[in-house]
């Protein structure tokens, strides 16, 4: 999976976990400021990523991500 495919996949999974339209999301979308959700949504997102991409990322690392791009970087580092 190249970087572009990974970005598309993560955007898709964020949309599912946060109940948003993927078209309304971008790499610059900020989890705290732009998305309505609590840590429970982030945990669900990490579970989806782990199920789909066959990796494991520390929940604390994911929770520390400000933007979707930060999360893509964190996932890429584990692949």
């Amino acid at each position, binding site marked *: 999976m190249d970087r572009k495919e990974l970005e598309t996949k993560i955007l898709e999974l964020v949309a599912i976990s946060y109940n948003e339209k993927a078209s309304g999301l971008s790499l610059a979308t900020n989890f705290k400021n732009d998305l309505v959700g*609590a*840590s*429970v949504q982030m*945990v*669900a997102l*990490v*579970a*989806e990523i*782990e*199920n789909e991409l*066959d990796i*494991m990322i520390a*929940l*604390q690392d994911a*929770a520390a991500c400000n933007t979707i791009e930060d999360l893509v970087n964190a996932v890429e580092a584990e692949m």
Partner: protein
Amino acid sequence: MSVLDNIYAKAKKNPQRVAFPEAANEKMMQAAYETGKEGYIIPVLVGNAEELRILAKERGYDSSVFTIVDINEEEYKNSVIEKFVALPDTKLKEKALGRRMQDPLYYAMAMQKAGEVGVTFAGIDNTTGDVLLAGQMMIGLQPGISTVSSIGLCDIPGFEGSEGTLLAVGDSAVCTNPSADQLADIAISACDTVKNLLAWEPRCAMVSYSTLGSGQGELVDKVTEAVRIANEKRPDLNIDGEFQFDAAISPAVAAKKVKRESSVAGKANVTIWPDLNVGNVGVKLIQQFGHADAYGPMLQGFNSIVCDCSRGAPVSEIKGNIVISAVRAAAMGQV
């Protein structure tokens, strides 16, 4: 008989299986051993079995008190995975779950979700954040609740409240600046916690610097909105406010300040702080000036009982929190 004595007596009648994913820790193993030996719980140590057996022997413990689960043993692990993924409300699939279960904290919580134990007790090696996030991933939150929070139980000498010297307060430990929605969740969870642990009929006051509009501002608005949301979500519970603290717990003050019917004002047995600043200072005031014993924090909002103890806690405090968790689990109808 003190409140803690009552809780210990309850625990002994129906000992729960409690998972300890940090059992190699000396204080944790001692607390697990003593509560097990004294008959309050059935301690299940989760980790590297060989290491745990050696440590238990070195420390002079009778190994028959412990059930030891080896996280490297595949057969049992696979049976837990099978039960876990078959549940309708779990997030992880087999492979991802197997990876997570390399960590004893996640292994223990997978066992709990699968019904193999009633409680996971951790927090001495893992941070509070680790335990809360793992709990959300593995155990999940109760339907309708989106916030993990906590309450403490204060035993205040000389206090003549509606439950004698006892008052439950929350959240003094987890949610820093809850929204109105989150505050409503804290109140709802607190009512369920005291019902399960103490068999009280909860009367929950949401406190502020204002009593029913005596003060104005966004801080008050948040609390009144939280009361509205809580009552809408759980009309079966007695949750009322906004009240000043004295109007919440003193019948005389309530008679002066609360000019409408309330099943809570003046006789609250649970008070919910508007934020963590108030919560932390409030508990310290009760402890310092009221010379109170404060038990907890008890985590709430999870589908079943997860306990996070303070990393600096002495063995006696850890034991108390283990027993409290076990009694809460028994009341929730767990293993």
